[in-house]
């Protein structure tokens, strides 16, 4: 029997779809936005979204979906946009992704769905991230909270950490009818989404709305609990009656460069710099109490080339930094940041000094940073990461005058939970050992995912592990087999 032929709502022929240019994301002008913290991207209008959606080739085997860490059914939701059924599109995304308004903004689409879009063979990829954001924002404006239909199972799951991995798992588990309780160490829910990613890239209001949606679905949240200190994993099982625990605490400790002068005033870790700004609103000092050093008219540099580095230096620019540098030891091609962020940073006048590495931070005589002594680098043979290894060029030392430096070269495992949970296995670098399929750890009933397992990664990869954990926790709670 012939399979039923799919009927496409798209009026354009395939070859005509490729003639439609990728719709530009409206954005705040660079000259204006360097003076504020409001969002850079303004979002598609309905018209732009429909135009963009028309470009989808509706592949028989959509590779975009295969490369999505949470398996969003891209073709199906885009088709619903073409039909004008935006709420249907949002619901379709929600089947696989509980935080669409967030991933639509911060996911590195070029590494996943968009990077594997068939259109890229000829033209620019479909704007999948922009479309995801559009329908998520539309759903939010319409105030449609998804309901939970599953009957209560009577099982209790504790989730440690309210970042992307934890929230993703919580959303899936509550929809299975389990009672889900999320513990957060800080005073705000959201983890890295809240303390790490700045307002101009991911407005806090968007996060709060997504979390309110999860609350409406029945997820419970408790702030100010540092698991490993305030309560231990064993106590969650023995005293608080949880049936399973998912550890999703994030990577944790900032890594410093171990070069002279790192203790000087004016030298920050990216975690501290961004936490002051994002979580504590230091950019609104003195309306808010938490301060940050004065950046107006100053020369500032970030060390590193990831999204965190760009978030930090673009924040510094918005706080009035006169000169704002990215010092990165490899070349731009190896830079791990999202392409769009690099583009935006350049528009904002950030000076990219690639193949540059600091070797010492210099004192002004009063304990404050005066300058960074740097060396130029060149690329040698590929290293373990597959990227060409940067090597210092002899005799290339030079000084850059700086009052503030932000170190964004990565993080290492926070040992708080591992050190208080007997029998929980960790690897040599201190990260928790967990199966990459089931997220199970060495302890019965304990699952782990996100950066505390993999080391620093992305929001969407953490969410992927949260989904796998939820599936596996549900199986465990149903079968009781370990």
């Amino acid at each position, binding site marked *: 029997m012939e399979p039923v032929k799919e009927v496409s709502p798209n009026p354009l022929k395939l070859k005509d779809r490729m003639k439609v240019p990728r719709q530009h994301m409206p954005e705040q002008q660079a000259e204006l936005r360097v003076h504020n913290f409001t969002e850079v991207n303004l979002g598609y209008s309905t018209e732009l979204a429909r135009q963009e959606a028309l470009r989808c080739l509706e592949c028989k085997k959509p590779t975009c979906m295969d490369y999505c860490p949470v398996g969003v059914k891209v073709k199906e939701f885009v088709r619903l946009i073409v039909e004008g059924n935006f709420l249907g599109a949002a619901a379709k995304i929600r089947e696989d992704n509980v935080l669409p308004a967030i991933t639509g903004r911060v996911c590195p689409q070029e590494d996943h769905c968009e990077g594997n879009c068939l259109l890229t063979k000829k033209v620019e990829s479909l704007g999948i991230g922009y479309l995801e954001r559009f329908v998520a924002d539309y759903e939010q404006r319409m105030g449609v909270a998804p309901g939970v239909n599953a009957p209560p199972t009577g099982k209790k799951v504790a989730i440690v950490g309210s970042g992307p991995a934890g929230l993703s798992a919580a959303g899936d588990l509550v929809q299975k009818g389990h009672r889900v309780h999320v513990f957060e160490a800080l005073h705000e829910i959201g983890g890295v989404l809240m303390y790490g990613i700045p307002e101009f890239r991911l407005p806090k209001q968007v996060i709060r709305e997504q979390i309110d949606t999860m609350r409406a679905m029945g997820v419970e949240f408790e702030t100010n609990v540092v698991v490993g200190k305030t309560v231990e994993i064993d106590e969650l099982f023995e005293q608080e009656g949880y049936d399973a625990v998912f550890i999703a605490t994030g990577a944790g400790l900032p890594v410093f460069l171990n070069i002279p002068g790192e203790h000087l005033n004016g030298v920050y870790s990216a975690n501290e710099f961004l936490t002051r700004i994002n*979580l504590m609103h230091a950019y609104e000092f003195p309306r808010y109490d938490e301060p940050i050093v004065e950046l107006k008219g100053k020369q500032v540099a970030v060390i590193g080339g990831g999204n965190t580095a760009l978030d930090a230096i673009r924040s510094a620019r918005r706080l009035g930094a006169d000169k704002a540098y990215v010092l990165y030891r490899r070349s731009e091609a190896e830079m791990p940041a999202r392409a769009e962020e690099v583009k935006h940073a350049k528009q904002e006048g950030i000076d990219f000094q690639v193949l540059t590495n600091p070797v010492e931070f210099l004192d002004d005589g009063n304990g404050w940073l005066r300058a960074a002594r740097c060396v130029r680098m060149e690329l040698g043979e590929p290293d373990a990461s597959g990227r060409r290894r940067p090597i210092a060029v002899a005799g290339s030392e030079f000084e850059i005058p700086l009052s503030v430096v932000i170190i964004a070269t990565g993080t290492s495992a926070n040992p708080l939970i591992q050190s208080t949970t007997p029998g929980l296995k960790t690897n040599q670098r201190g990260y928790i050992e967990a199966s990459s399929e089931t997220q199970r750890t060495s302890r019965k009933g304990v699952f782990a995912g996100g950066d505390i397992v993999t080391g620093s990664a992305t929001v969407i990869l953490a969410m992927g592990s949260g989904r796998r954990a939820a599936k596996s926790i549900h199986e465990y709670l149903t079968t009781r087999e370990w």
Partner: protein
Amino acid sequence: MFRIQQAGFIAPQIKRFVIEAPRIARKHRAGQFVILRLHERGERIPLTIESSDAERGTISIVVQSVGKTTKQLNALETGDGILDVVGPLGKPSAIKNFGTVVVVGGGVGTALAYPTTVALKRAGNRIVTILGGRNRDLVLLENEMRQVSDELYITTDDGSYGEKGLVTDKLRELIAQGMTIDEVLAVGPVPMMKAVADVTKEPGIHTVVSLNPIMIDGTGMCGGCRVIIGGKSKFACVDGPEFEAHEVDFSVLMQRNRMYREAERKSLEEFQRAEKEGGHGKAEGGDKATACLMAEDKQWSR
């Protein structure tokens, strides 16, 4: 919201709070601290836990009014609430039977040394306590400390109570008299702790100090509280707050505690101006490092 069950001044500008925080009370060990935030626009400040009662589900803290946040906190009364309290953070004090322990408490630091002193006494140590303050009002918890001490000495800067002089004068005197001291615990302003470390270094007496750098999250995430211990960078929030005194780079600690001095001054000035104008909570900006201002305590800034 964490309810204040009881609040009262124990000295001018120094107030004790009993706060309902059952989870923290259950896990607290001597030497640990909490981080609190008063209101939606407030900063996060670390404060050592003075005592806890697991059955009642309460902890107590002792707070000296120094900057805006501590002044706002000390304006709170029984029945008021604190928005966020998280803990217990940091490593507990090392408690064992050392033999004879000299506890040196400077000003409000005495309240912070108190729970560890109680635990050390219970562990069988002979406790010799030296309490110091600029004047009589700043000698805290004398009665409480006396109950757990075998000997207790008091020094004041101006001689208004006890012996005139510094806590280190008394400590030097005890060492000179040939007292066998197995361990020293010093908690107070940074210059005082540094001075104690200087006194005990030469005779080689193991000395512990409790450091108070600027912190935000208290879980090791931000690295703002990094201190140099034996030439290596450590995070006071997770590796401390107590460290071996002779390993501590006190000058870097003092330098880093000065980082927000300008901002703190601005905050406090605006707060005080608003207070004078009769408004409450109108002033803006906080006091990140109460520690830093304590460090400027006249007694120790010479």
